[in-house]
């Protein structure tokens, strides 16, 4: 299911998209054995969790791509694999044309000079026993980016300033003495100290108070604008995804169901799941209509050998074909892709066909 993503300039006027794919994810599969040790991927087996199941997507240099999905969609696993923390079961990830070598720790180290990640929980992202200064010094030392203590101090101080913090206030403190918002900013500082070209942000604001989120989002946007930082933004919050990203990919149970510019996804969604997500988002002004399917609280689990569309069991529009064949991502409009027989304008499906029982 190789898909060529047409590179088009998106509505975000500030983004200057390069015409080469910066991150190239090809047929990526990450499967986990269903045992108490979830960190070691395995292939084929009875109890396999297919966290990422044959995903192919490219990220352009300088763009902000959001992966939107609920829990179990595989978005975090995808992010971790792109940054080298989780090993794929099959498929490959290329950064700037170079395939990531997951076996070689030395090569991974080289990767981490270019590609970094920030995590969801600002409270557990730091070693509680180390003061902040040490946490920030580590990447500089380990990657050999500074030649002296003084140079390190200077870079740390200016980076903290960059993320909106005063070095004097936070440097010598321990993580539990700082607020969630401050910790998340320091998290970003730590990632940015190595001057990466790619940042994977895994739900960076979901655990922060509402009033603190804008600051972090603005910071990421500014890093993207000023430093041409490419961002893979993982979130379950469509409003945040729309706000920050150029393009959005909607993930469900390991597959990408829809991909397009954030404008397209939000204003003219194609996939029934995307429509469901959009109608579920709470609106302060009151929603237009409630999703009419309360049975959604019982998502039916799809067995691993199911041949059809992942969304079949919960889809209100499913037809027979959806049960036996899996739709692939097809470009319906320029830059807007969807994996659904009923919405990808394939001529074989008549929209008047009766939905399956």
């Amino acid at each position: 299911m190789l898909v060529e993503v047409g590179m088009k300039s998106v509505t975000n006027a500030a983004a200057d998209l390069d015409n080469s794919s910066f991150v190239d994810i090809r047929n990526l599969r990450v499967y986990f054995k269903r045992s108490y040790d979830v960190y070691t991927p395995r292939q084929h087996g009875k109890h396999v969790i297919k966290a990422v199941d044959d995903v192919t997507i490219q990220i352009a240099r300088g763009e902000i791509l959001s992966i939107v999905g609920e829990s179990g969609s595989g978005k975090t696993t995808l992010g971790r694999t792109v940054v080298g923390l989780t090993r794929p079961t099959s498929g490959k990830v290329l950064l700037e044309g170079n395939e990531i070598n997951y076996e070689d720790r030395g090569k991974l180290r080289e990767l981490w000079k270019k590609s970094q990640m920030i995590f969801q929980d600002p409270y557990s992202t730091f070693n509680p026993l180390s003061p902040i200064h040490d946490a920030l010094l580590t990447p500089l030392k380990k990657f050999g980016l500074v030649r002296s203590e003084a140079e390190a101090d200077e870079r740390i101080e200016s980076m903290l300033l960059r993320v909106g913090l005063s070095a004097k206030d936070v440097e010598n403190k321990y993580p539990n003495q700082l607020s969630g918002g401050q910790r998340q900013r320091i998290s970003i500082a730590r990632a940015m100290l190595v001057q990466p070209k790619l940042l994977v942000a895994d739900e960076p604001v979901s655990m922060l108070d509402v009033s603190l989120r804008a600051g972090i989002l603005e910071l990421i946007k500014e890093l993207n604008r000023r430093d041409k930082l490419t961002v893979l933004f993982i979130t379950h919050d469509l409003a945040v995804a729309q706000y920050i990203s150029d393009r959005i990919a909607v993930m469900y149970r390991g597959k990408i169901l829809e991909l397009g510019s954030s404008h397209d996804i939000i204003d003219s969604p194609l996939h029934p799941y995307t429509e469901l997500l959009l109608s579920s988002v709470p609106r302060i002004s009151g929603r237009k209509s409630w999703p009419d399917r309360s049975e959604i609280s019982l998502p039916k689990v799809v067995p691993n050998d199911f041949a059809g569309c992942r969304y079949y069991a919960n889809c209100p529009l499913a037809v027979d074909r959806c049960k036996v064949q899996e739709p692939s991502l097809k470009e319906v409009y320029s830059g807007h892709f969807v994996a659904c027989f009923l919405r990808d304008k394939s001529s074989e499906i008549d929209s008047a066909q009766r939905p399956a029982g």
Partner: protein
Amino acid sequence: MTQLGETVTTTGAFVQIRDLTVTYPTPMGELRAVDGVNLDVYRGEVLGLVGESGCGKTTLGLAMLRMNSPGRVVKGKVNVDGVDVLSLEGERLRRYRWEKVAMIFQSAMNALDPVKTVESQIVETIVQHGRTNKEKAKARVRELLETVKIDPLRAKSFPHELSGGMKQRIIIALALCLSPELLIADEPTTALDVVVQASILKTIKELQERLKLTIILITHDISIVGEMSDRLAIMYAGKVVEVGRTIDVVYDPQHPYTQALIKAIPTIGYKNAEIKGIPGVPPNLLSPPSGCRFHPRCPFAFDRCKTEEPPLINNGKDHVACWLRSA
């Protein structure tokens, strides 16, 4: 202009809270989680209680059930349907809790007893209140499960066999099992996926209409209350800073904090609308700022704000505690 601090019988509200102060003991002194709060809740309405972490909204909710321990109520009155809740003792307090007012606690779905079936947990609650026997209780359980849209066959399931959304519905069923008139829901949908969240909220809304419940919905997410509640109360640093009809508060917020809160969240469909965070950090409740608690972070603060604390005043549109809006 009337102040909200009138005597108990004048407003006729279902819940009347007057000058409530709740403190928690900490190694560094008494922390005032709720400080001099006045609030009315009318029968049959959904009141949204919104604020960020540490503002005192959960404490306020717990106070209505007298469940603040280890904190304590040091001042004020809480009246529910004419009953002085703070003076209830023993049997009357037991009757009050869960039969008059029930609560959905934060992360309650994680507190379900893992070794008991759903049915037995609800039955236990019903029977312990001495209302009916086991048989009738079981019938009630089936009725409740249907009300919260759970297949009654699931009554014999254990909590770990249920998804997050289903567990939360069980929690709602547990809260409603003795037919309370007031339901306090503290963050009922945090930690749930957005689709499940929508279905739970929809169920709560339907329940409210059908059972004529009065609901206090506590949350940090103002977009939820925006669509669920009739009136909205905004809390900051232990105080209520604005109260009014949801439409008014959302479309024409009076208090600078409310305005900032609304501007801080991205809204679907308004991609290019700028969002802004609020500079600074919430105050330390052990030594809150003098005057208006929000003044260090308020873009409109002037002298009076720093020295005198503004009272909650009805300014014609809604109730606001802000010197900009009074006189």
